[in-house]
């Protein structure tokens, strides 16, 4: 953020108020890379991305500096609490007829929000991400979720940015043998009253926890890969909800209150209010150890049957004001240099979407130099991730959860 001109911008904005800000449609053709770079120069990209983590915010600040220095593109990180609000903003703009000059240029997204934006025609409709220069390094074969986002084909409408997998954390000094399955988790809760909880759905990570349980508990997990079927929903999810009925009275605060986000969950873990925490970023605990929030003895692990994993992306809305700049930023975020930096535990610790083995030697060296945090499971320990269910399941499960446990 520029620091001094706040007052200047205020005046400028006041001058623009009555006229509205005019936007111009841009060609933004990723197949003409030099042309795209020329178009991007001087643009300001409003990148709407979750802002709840200092390491991530710092990483994006670095990316913004590099973008300004290398491409003359100004990047403003709009710190978002919940990506659903971004989807809503774009949808509201579409409803109001604003087809150019939109307020969102690039959005950090995946899963349900991507599905919603794709379904409602809120994304730039021509494929662009698979034409970016750095896309050739993406590990589409080894990491199938880079092209299939929550079972929805990506089709070049979003650019892969990082890998995520649900990872649990425990303090090895106090909990030597943490639960590694849904059944073990219930047994642990019964033996340790009030020491477990999860973020309240529809929080993203809280909902993922429910999906993790569902993948383990439903009779045939394969049905979760298909769109939800109204007729069979109750029957399919019955094991999940009878499990939750059994678990809830043993939860932290007897399930009468829940943390509102995965970061709030981590804070409770840091305060020793609960015994287990989990996050989608395998390096979350390592980051917190490095900054003194968590004890050194915290370790990460996954369930014996594996945990849900996915890819997170960046997407350009249909009415982006700086589409060219947004694509250049997406390409930069996918570059081996930016990806290796992101994977370094000292920076963020977010696993790469690239096929490291296939990279040029110089770039391979960057990844070799990246450190892995003490509490971050190795790729071998993470194993192969379980697939995300079709997004329609999540909407239904969240609604059913709220009716049962979120409305007293």
């Amino acid at each position, binding site marked *: 953020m520029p620091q001094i001109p706040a*007052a200047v911008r205020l005046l400028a904005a006041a001058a623009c108020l009555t006229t509205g800000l005019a936007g111009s449609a841009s060609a933004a053709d990723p197949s003409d890379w030099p042309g795209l770079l020329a178009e991007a120069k001087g643009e300001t990209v409003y990148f709407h991305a979750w802002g709840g983590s200092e390491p991530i915010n710092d990483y994006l600040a670095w990316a913004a500096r590099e973008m300004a220095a290398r491409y003359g593109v100004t990047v403003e990180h709009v710190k*978002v609490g919940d990506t659903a609000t971004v989807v809503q903003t774009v949808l509201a703009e579409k409803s109001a007829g604003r087809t150019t000059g939109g307020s969102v240029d690039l959005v950090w997204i995946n899963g349900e929000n991507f599905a919603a934006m794709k379904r409602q025609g809120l994304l730039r409709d021509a494929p662009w991400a698979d034409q970016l220069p750095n896309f050739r390094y993406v590990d589409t074969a080894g990491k199938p979720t880079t092209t299939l986002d929550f079972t929805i084909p990506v089709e070049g409408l979003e650019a892969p940015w990082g890998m995520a997998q649900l990872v649990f954390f425990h303090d090895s000094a106090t909990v030597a043998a943490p639960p590694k399955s849904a059944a073990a988790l219930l047994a642990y809760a019964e033996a340790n009253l009030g020491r477990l909880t999860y973020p309240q759905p529809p929080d993203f990570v809280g909902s993922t926890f429910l999906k993790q349980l569902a993948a383990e508990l439903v009779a045939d997990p394969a049905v979760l890969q298909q769109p939800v079927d109204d007729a069979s929903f109750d029957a399919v999810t019955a094991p999940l909800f009878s499990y939750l009925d059994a678990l809830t009275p043993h939860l932290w605060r007897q399930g009468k209150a829940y943390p509102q986000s995965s970061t709030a969950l981590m804070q409770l873990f*840091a305060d020793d209010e609960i015994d287990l925490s989990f996050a989608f970023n395998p390096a979350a605990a390592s980051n917190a150890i490095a900054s003194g929030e968590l004890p050194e003895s915290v370790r990460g692990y996954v369930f014996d049957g594996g945990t849900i994993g996915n890819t997170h992306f960046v997407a350009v809305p249909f009415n982006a004001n700086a589409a060219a700049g947004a694509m250049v930023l997406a390409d930069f975020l996918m570059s081996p240099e930016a990806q290796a930096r992101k994977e370094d535990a000292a920076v963020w610790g977010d696993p790469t979407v690239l096929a490291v083995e296939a990279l040029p030697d110089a770039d391979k060296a960057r990844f070799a130099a990246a450190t892995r945090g003490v509490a971050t499971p190795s790729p071998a320990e993470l194993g192969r991730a379980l697939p995300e269910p079709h997004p329609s399941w999540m909407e239904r499960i969240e609604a059913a959860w709220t009716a049962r446990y979120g*409305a007293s």
Partner: protein
Amino acid sequence: MARAEPAAAGSPALGLFPVALIALLAAPVLAGLAGVALPAFGWLPALGGERLSLGAFAALAERPGIARSALLSLWTGLGSALLAFVATVLFVAGFAGTRTFSVLRGLISPLLSLPHAAAAIGLAFLVSPSGWLIRLASPWATGWTRPPDLLVINDPAGTALLLGLAAKEVPFLMLMTLAALGRGGGAATAMVTASLGYGRVTGFLLAVLPRLYPQIRLPIFAVIAYATSTVDMALVLGPTTPPTLAVALVRLAADPDLAVRFEASAAALLQLGVTASALAIWMLGERAAAMLARRAARRGRRDHFDNALAAAGLAGTGLAAAAVGAGLVSLGLWSVAEQWRFPAGLPDSVSLERWSAALPELVATVGTTAALAAASTAIALVLVLGSLEAAERRGSKGLAGAGLIYLPLLVPQVAFLFGLQVLLLAAGVTPGLAPVLLAHLVFVVPYVALSLEDPWQAFDRRYARAAAALGASPARIFWRIRLPLLARPVATAAAVGFAVSVGVYLPTLLAGGGRVVTLTTEAVARAGGSDRRTLAIYALAQTLLPFAGFVAAALLPRLVHRGQRAAGGVR
């Protein structure tokens, strides 16, 4: 009362001020209400709603927990206002004029500048089971080596929210009560009742309060309207299963499925109904209390457990001040804590690393926040002073359309802001600094007017008449006599306006589309985050900025007067 100038002398330009004032304040509120009322009944062509229906209300009623959310808002809002009012009145009744009074008043006044979000965050740090209080008492007194599983904050009944709101509103009600007391000749009445043998509290309640109350009624209504519809305090302290109506409404309005917009609009009308019901219940309570008071006065009993009531007032206000103050101290500790594990009473190690890491962004955010606050306060001062001066020259008493000016204080923010957002979008206004500035004005102006109206009316008009007799024009009288003599209240009003602008959350979020980052939006956004130290830094900054405004307000008038004396302007 004779006027310095006849009405005709009012310049036409000055006549525009009251119009601008009302247009600026009432128009957004009324337009915003229309913007939610129409979709609530199914009318929003942009989203395909072209037929009036009650479908949105039916869908809302189907939503799990919505009735409980509405009841929670009513209960926490009314309960907190009542608690804060009773504690304030009993304390003032029992201790006005004593040393205890001036000491506690000195402790409470700075808390006025404390934004709601920072107060809530500090309280949460203080009283949660892993909070500072239990850390201080553990394990030596409690035996706890890990935090107990106690439902203290976020309890489903909203008790924590109720108490937090009450603690935060005590300083505001106290200031308003003291200002009214200064005007009403309360001290003289108290002497009369004392000479008739009445106890301090009984005498105050039966003789002083009935005349005092009408003057603090509007601030109390503002407190009720705020407390029944708060978002930022409820997000930190409030229940989650389900949340209060205002929080549920914000979530509905953020649903990616725009069809839910209709339901959100219906929820906004429900919120309006909840706040209106709270005000109606309060007014019924006013009547009941007045009846009881008259009966008690007729009976003539001189003492109604006066000492116990006074002690309760002292305990209530003292606790409120102590809790909010200790919350602030715990914020300060967390902001420098490197490691602070349960049950250590103090951080295991401290460092300024977080402050230096946060500084670059903090400076930028403080810049935006201060620029917005300064701009909105300056515009508000011009508008309010211009309107007061216009009323003065017209020879009318008080501001024109005062009821409309205070509308933004009585209509819940969440009820009209979403409607306003839809209208702004439909009008093609890009979210950004300018809409945020306008949104801030809607809330800054009423508070500036509230702070300025009384001192303006209390101004001794003989000065103006003497100046007019010496041939001074109305403009000269305004600039050289009235304004300098009112420098202190103007500075105080500016500080209040500045503090309001710094603390405004939802209007900033909605009108800014997330792009306009202020200390308050950052603090609330980080309240859900994991790094408590960065959160503490933002909450502290959010507190210190308006506090600096109040300090400046106390110092500036002196400089103005000194400068004038030096220039020989006014003797």
